[in-house]
């Protein structure tokens, strides 16, 4: 049942910059309740389009991601909890 190994999906962490993708599933268990609530507040949800835009200068962390019309910064670790289907 692990949402992490659905065929055809990759982790948002591995999506290359400028590639749009559709959120397939979010493994909420990997996040603590506060982090999960904030991700939801940012609009992360199944079926939403996301696009990584920028990487932090040190260790390519955090990642700036466009979600809906918003750009948010999350850590690589959080992005690892999100499985996406690349659109292009």
């Amino acid at each position: 049942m692990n949402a992490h190994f659905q065929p055809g999906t990759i982790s948002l962490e591995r999506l290359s910059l400028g590639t749009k993708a559709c959120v397939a599933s979010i493994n909420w268990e990997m996040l603590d309740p506060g982090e999960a609530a904030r991700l939801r507040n940012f609009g992360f949800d199944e079926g939403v389009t996301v696009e990584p835009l920028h990487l932090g200068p040190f260790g390519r962390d955090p990642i700036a991601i466009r979600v809906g019309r918003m750009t948010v910064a999350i850590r690589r670790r959080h992005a690892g909890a999100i499985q996406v289907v690349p659109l292009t």
Partner: protein
Amino acid sequence: MNPLPLIAVAGSPNAGKSALFNALTGARQKVGNYPGVTVERHSGRSTSADGRPIELVDLPGAYSLDPASPDEAVTRDVLLGQQKGERQPDALLIVVDASNLDNHLRFALQLIELGLPTIVALNMVDLAKRDGLELDPVRLEQELGVPVISTVAVRRRGTAELQAALDDMLSSPRCGVHKHVKSDLLNLQRRAREIAATAVISETPTRRWTHRLDAVLLHPVLGPVILAALMFVMFQAVFAWSQTPVGWIEDGVSWVSGVASSALPAGFLRSLVVDGAIAGVGAVITFLPQILILFFFILLLEGTGYMVRAAFLMDKLMHGTGLSGRAFIPLLSSFACAVPGIMATRTIDDPKDRLTTILVAPLMTCSARLPVYTLIIAAFIPNTNVGLGIGLQGLVMFGLYVLGIAGALLAALTLRKGVLKGGSGGFMMELPKYQWPSLKDVVIGLLTRIEIFLKRAGTIILGTTVVLWALASIPPAGPGQKQSEVSIAGHIANGIEVVVKPIGFNHDIALALLPAMAAREVAVSAIATVYSLDASGDPDQLDKSLADKLRHRWPLPTALAFLAWFVFAPQCISTIAVTRRETNGWKWPLFMVSYLFILAYAAAGLTYWTAVALGL
């Protein structure tokens, strides 16, 4: 008398809520605190279109009515009429970002469900247009069932229409508040997306301005270089731009003390007014220009949206020391003053992250240290050019800031490895669109700072200066005796001197350390008071600037040790008090004070011994 109609301004973070609040209230604002919690209450007066007075309260930004922070809890409690010290609002003004409706409408829908008379301000329509997004406010109005007004708060556009709408809302009879029905957030989010989609008239895909700017400002190489350059320019400006106004203030103070001297008969009263009050406060307000310049930069960084980018750039490094990029903003604010900086840590969700940030915040070089640094640097560091137009004095100043930052990072690392072990620390932030803040918003921010600074100068500092003057003047010195040694203060300082002598501090410094606990800048006025008293028999001495006096009295290693001491010493009652408030007890403030005094003593000692060994 009926109280004024109370209208709550609510919205998600980065919707431009405060700018709209400023646009409606102007300078008629009051900043207070909600009882029992440490959340600021911003309220102000405004008028509706037909001139009836209304009261506005600017609620903390929230993403939903399910609070994730103390600020968001206040927002919920006020809106539900459960907040102590606040009556339930009569009406709501919901602010949403026109180019982020998908997200902001979720909270708006949740608020509309409350059933209060509501107006939605569709804010920042200009930025949406810039990004090729055209919206239909009428359609939005139909979908939401409440009036929608397009605004550009930072440009003060749409405020007249808003005031007219407020008027309609307040005039129409109210049919009782219906019971709050709580919808599922996920459904609200999906509904928000649907409405946002129907409200779009046209959308031209453009390479967005913010994206283009971010390509440069968040560039892996250019980004950090630009950030470092900005910080450096900021600190050079604090020095260069302030010289002229500082001169004016100094002239003004000496004029006032001249007038007071000739108006008052020689004796106790003249001494109290001229040597106590005017000399003390005068020495402190001289530094107002630096503080204003620093705050100007901080407000600009915040208003443009760059501050969050700085957090993004710094997150990994901060994470390496056990902090998050979110700590960057409170810590950067602490460069102005640790008190608002520590209060700004409320945005950090992780409790251990937050506590670590609070404990290291006093190590950031706050503006109260500037008077001390400026005085010592002006007295002991030659004003030479080290090349490329960089002054040696500015360079030393920069070095002191760097020393404070290095100390903070090391302290954070040690704390996270020791007493504050554990906790992952999250970093999740919205990167708002870039925009040019309105001058008016910056001015309102600056005025609030001036008020706070002058209140401190006027109350704590004046108070301690006068007490010190009394301690330093009683009993009066006999012929051939030095006033600073026979006085009560002299005797207290003798005790402190024993402790600080090994690190090169003299009697005068020992005398200044105790009153400087009230506020660091008092160290300067304390020294000024001591020297102006000692010089009272010698008019030549009196004319010389304080810096000249110091140059003749202090050896260079002592001056450098004094600087090193002030990088670390927790010399500020307000900081200790706010730490107590924010951590809810005495444990952490006492811990903070002890570790900082130990650091200060060690740093001053090392500096002094090294300088002596080098023969400086």
